[in-house]
């Protein structure tokens, strides 16, 4: 049953959560699907949740990881998209952004949570359901991998010049 608190939460936090979802999956439409799906999963448990934001992030990451494991992806969408399903091609010109999207889901999630949401290692570990050590190693290896994927000159370009 719809819940006033849940509705208020969705209305207040939707934009912020959508940005996180987008950074996790790299696609506007998939971000909407991902967040909608996580919120739909949260709705029946809403009254029992202590930390809904952490729960939603974990569900999104898990769903994303599971989607990648599945050979056939089910796209869950509540409404028809009101515009074409192609993301702007400009995103592909950003090498660091492109490199980030090539990382494994959980590694990318660690980088987003740690360096965009500025969450602590402990909090990131709690959200993702992994150990702090895993967070540390994912963050370190993720940054190393980005350095490998993005040649040094391009980083300056990625930093606001395109």
């Amino acid at each position: 049953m719809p819940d006033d608190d849940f509705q208020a939460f969705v209305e207040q936090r939707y934009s912020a959560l959508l940005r996180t979802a987008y950074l996790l999956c790299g696609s506007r439409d998939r971000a909407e699907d991902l967040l909608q799906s996580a919120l739909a999963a949260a709705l029946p448990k809403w009254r029992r949740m202590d930390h809904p934001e952490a729960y939603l992030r974990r569900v999104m990451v898990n769903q994303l990881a599971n989607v990648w494991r599945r050979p056939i992806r089910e796209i869950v969408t509540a409404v028809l998209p009101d515009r074409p399903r192609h993301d702007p091609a400009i995103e592909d010109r950003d090498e660091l952004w492109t490199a980030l999207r090539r990382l494994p889901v959980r590694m990318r999630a660690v980088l987003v949570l740690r360096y965009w949401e500025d969450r602590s290692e402990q909090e990131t570990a709690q959200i993702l359901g992994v150990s702090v050590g895993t967070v540390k190693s994912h963050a370190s290896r993720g940054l190393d991998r980005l350095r490998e994927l993005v040649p040094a000159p391009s980083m300056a370009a990625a930093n606001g010049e395109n």
Partner: protein
Amino acid sequence: MIDELRAVLDRHADDITPRPYPYTRVVVLHRRRRRNLVSTLAVVSVLLVVAPAAWLLTRSPAGPHQLATPPPAELLPLLNSPTRGSLAGDEAFLEAMRRRTADEVGAERGDPANGPYMPTDPDRVKVLFAGDIGSRRYVLTAGLDGWPLKAMFFGHQDEPPAHLAQAGSGALEAAEEATFAIGPGPDDEVGFLLLGPVGAVYEEGQAQWSSTGVTRTWTAIAVPDGYLAVANVTRIQRFRVRLGDKVLREVQTYPVKAGPVAVDPAPYGGRGTPMPEVAGQVASSLTSLTQLRDTGAVLRVLWSDEVPAPGAAGGLVRAVTVQVVTADGGGPYFTGVVDGDGMWRDHLTGSGFAGDPARALIVMRLPSYTAQDNTRLQVIAPPGAVRAESVQGGQVVDIPLVDGVGWRPAPPQTTLTVRAYDAAGALLATTTFTDLLPPGCDRLNPPTCQTPVPTAGTPDPVGPTP
């Protein structure tokens, strides 16, 4: 590399805007999933277990609604009331909404054995409200049998029945309310509807606050159309609807946008450091919660300081406690904290009622920016206090005070007694702190906090100063 990564993430995140009506879409998706799950379970159950029994049952002449009992007596006044709203006379519109409700809601909630239910027969569905409120069209329908389910539909003014979005369903109550956004954005204004039975009295309440609680005076409101609607909520109002002596529903409206509230940021008795911006925001929240915005209410900052908070940006938060000064010298208070990124938090224990700050003692848990509770219990004692002590399970812990302010660590789910003393060792104030508040407790609305909950430990009795 980290700075470059942050910049890239910031730039891409800034471009993201949500599609309209996210909440409605979540509800629709949830219902679709539940329907699929129920369908799957039903098929499996029928195949494995229920089929023989069902076969026997279907040999009887039982109809689909035979299990439905009459609706609860307290719902009959609303169900027996005529349709209200500007479209109440449009029989074609009402018939279309009855049919939509029976087809869409009855199809998934049409079993009276599973709680509130919606008949699949349109003739057993009633439109309780259908009309335009400001720029929005709202329709409320309900089943007429058994434990009635309600269904809500929203749309823009002038939209036909087929275009309205089903916004949810739930158990019907004796009086109904609806709050809805006028526009698609989270900062758009909201409208409001309060709908009781015909003959009900609608009243607006004015609160009188004190250091110990709140009492309200109620004044009847004329509702010539038989319902109370606010097309654009621009101020905080508290309404209730009653039938005879029975209050059916009590609600409060909040505007989305509110102007600044003036408050002297200097904390009382020098307890901390002035923080004008944060104090203004907290004062704004407090006057909204207490319905005292724009009433000339006197406010004062009880405490204001920068304190550590795990997970907060920069590791620090600016915390301010603001109190409404009532005739008896005390009043309701509220605490808000904000970190370096402008992220706001409050904690349930950070609001309540306190007396004259020269004698009042407040203990609260500060909010957390991580998944775990903040362990910091903040003590705001009379400015004349030089030390405090907490007593828990017979164990006494000293709490040093500076200008009447101090703190101690405490794990979650704590209940303890705190005492504050002056330089001569005289007891100035004492209070009991507990995290174990009833679910849904609003400490500025005392009736919601009077349900006892099991406690982890009993607070120590407050005795004479040792």
